[in-house]
């Protein structure tokens, strides 16, 4: 990991939607962000805070209107940039990605991206195998299943595999677990964690679920009205009640318990945001 060359570097990025019409709307306002290789960043913020606009810049779906976005040395504002090179580096998984499946069979759908890259059949097959196993779908068992007979959670995994088969360096996810049942949610989170920790992918995800943020993120980036208002580790952010109140940030259940205990006059470290840590803190109180 080189500190000087971040994987994602956003500088003074601004974006205005529907420019030149009465409906124009400033979605991003002088945003700055750096993400190091291998980091797992959570972007949080209320609806309309500019999260989606920001992440669409990462693979060039939106080009910078002003400011710059540089991904692993590729300058997204460069009109000459081969956009497909960029999109191979950055895999973007949209909200409800299961909507995007269109092939009859699971394997074919996962293979769409690699085929579009013009890879030889053997390589495509290898990648589909790799991507499917990575998201927890058995290649042998699932590749010939019809896409539309799958459950919601399985469809989402297929969609995720469809992006992973491009073998990106950065994985960007927009509310990856929204609308999933608790079990699929937990499994998907574990898959994403594996991708980040073992496959060394840089992961950037948008979420409204603070438990998820606490579990996964190395760093939390809070947006409001197109601006970045906070940027820090979960410990720094969840451990500071004033900041949380000021920016209307929800907290994981564990942090909520810690603050309640502190309000009751117990001496406790509110930075112990992980459930296990919270439990230890409470144990300490009981033993005292």
């Amino acid at each position: 990991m080189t500190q000087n060359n971040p994987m994602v570097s956003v500088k003074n990025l601004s974006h205005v939607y529907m420019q030149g019409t009465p409906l124009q709307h400033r979605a991003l306002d002088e945003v700055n962000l750096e993400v190091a290789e291998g980091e797992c960043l959570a972007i949080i913020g209320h609806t309309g805070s500019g999260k989606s606009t920001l992440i669409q810049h990462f693979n060039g779906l939106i080009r910078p209107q002003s400011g710059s976005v540089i991904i692993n040395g590729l300058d997204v504002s460069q009109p000459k940039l081969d956009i497909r090179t960029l999109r191979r580096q950055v895999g973007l998984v949209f909200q409800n990605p299961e909507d995007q499946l269109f092939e009859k069979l699971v394997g074919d759908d996962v293979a769409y991206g690699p085929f579009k890259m013009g890879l030889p059949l053997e390589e495509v097959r290898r990648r589909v195998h790799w991507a499917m196993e990575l998201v927890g779908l058995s290649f042998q068992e699932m590749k010939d299943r019809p896409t539309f007979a799958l459950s919601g959670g399985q469809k989402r995994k297929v969609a995720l595999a469809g992006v992973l088969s491009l073998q990106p360096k950065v994985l960007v996810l927009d509310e990856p677990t929204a609308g999933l049942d608790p079990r699929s949610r937990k499994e998907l989170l574990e898959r994403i964690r594996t991708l980040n920790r073992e496959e060394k992918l840089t992961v950037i995800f948008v979420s409204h679920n603070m438990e998820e943020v606490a579990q996964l993120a190395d760093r939390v980036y809070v947006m409001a009205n197109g601006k970045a208002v906070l940027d820090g580790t979960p410990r720094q952010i969840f451990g500071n009640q004033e900041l949380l109140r000021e920016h209307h940030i929800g907290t994981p259940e564990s942090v909520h318990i810690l603050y309640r205990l502190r309000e009751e006059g117990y001496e406790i470290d509110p930075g112990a945001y992980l459930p296990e840590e919270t439990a230890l803190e409470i144990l300490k109180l009981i033993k005292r």
Partner: protein
Amino acid sequence: MSAEFELTRNITIGQYLPTGSVVHRLDPRFKLAAFVVMILAIAICNTYVGNLFALAVCIWMFSVSKIPLHYGISGIKPAVPFIIILAIMQLLFYGEIANGGTIYLKYGFITISSESIRLVVVSAMRFVDVIFLSSVLTLSTSTTELTHGMERLLGPLEKVKFPVHAFALIITIAIRFVPTFAMEMEKMMKAQASRGADFGTGEWWRIVRRTKDMFPIIIPLFNVALARAEDLILAMEARCYVPGASRTRFAHYKASSKDYLALLFSIVISVIMLGIPF
């Protein structure tokens, strides 16, 4: 370049521009009737001067309703190739039928006469007139008003068992979902582009390939549309919608002298248009 996926911006159907002008405030029933009269007149009128007159009236109506003319012109742009193709077809193949007047050229089956040229010019002008007129109508009337007006105007047809209400409902729903599906499509295009799809980069003559490029958008879009339709059915039934049941109305319209004047105006314009001999 940054606007390559901003589909919602390009959709003018159902776009309403509230400027609060006289035209906006007309009773939708009368407004609709007046427009129908004028469109009929345009369809019948086949003289140069009559159509020029209609064009002038249309442009004047933009200024009365305080709508910038470029909204009308942007409505014509997508129709231009169609108008041109139609004009060429008429010029080449209609000479035999519209063969009055002076014949300028006769070569095989191609006959070009003053009458066929008139036909070509007049139909192109009709197109422009109709697009202008309907732009003024949709830009100055909200879709709710429009469907209400239509439902009321078609009301008498209920006597011959024509499902007027259902018809109006279908149109309301169709218009309501245009922006929704545009957004869905935008999302789908972005999602597939993120997986390496590219749209509109193939050479234009490779129609099969370019059509195939659209499958990853069209198939999911159909899926989403069907799912939305089912949701809509449930939502309507949950609110006790029964097809064909008699229902009261929320919006009541009361015609004023202004509305009668507007209708009268459209009739006068039509008579003038049809009365002009050239």
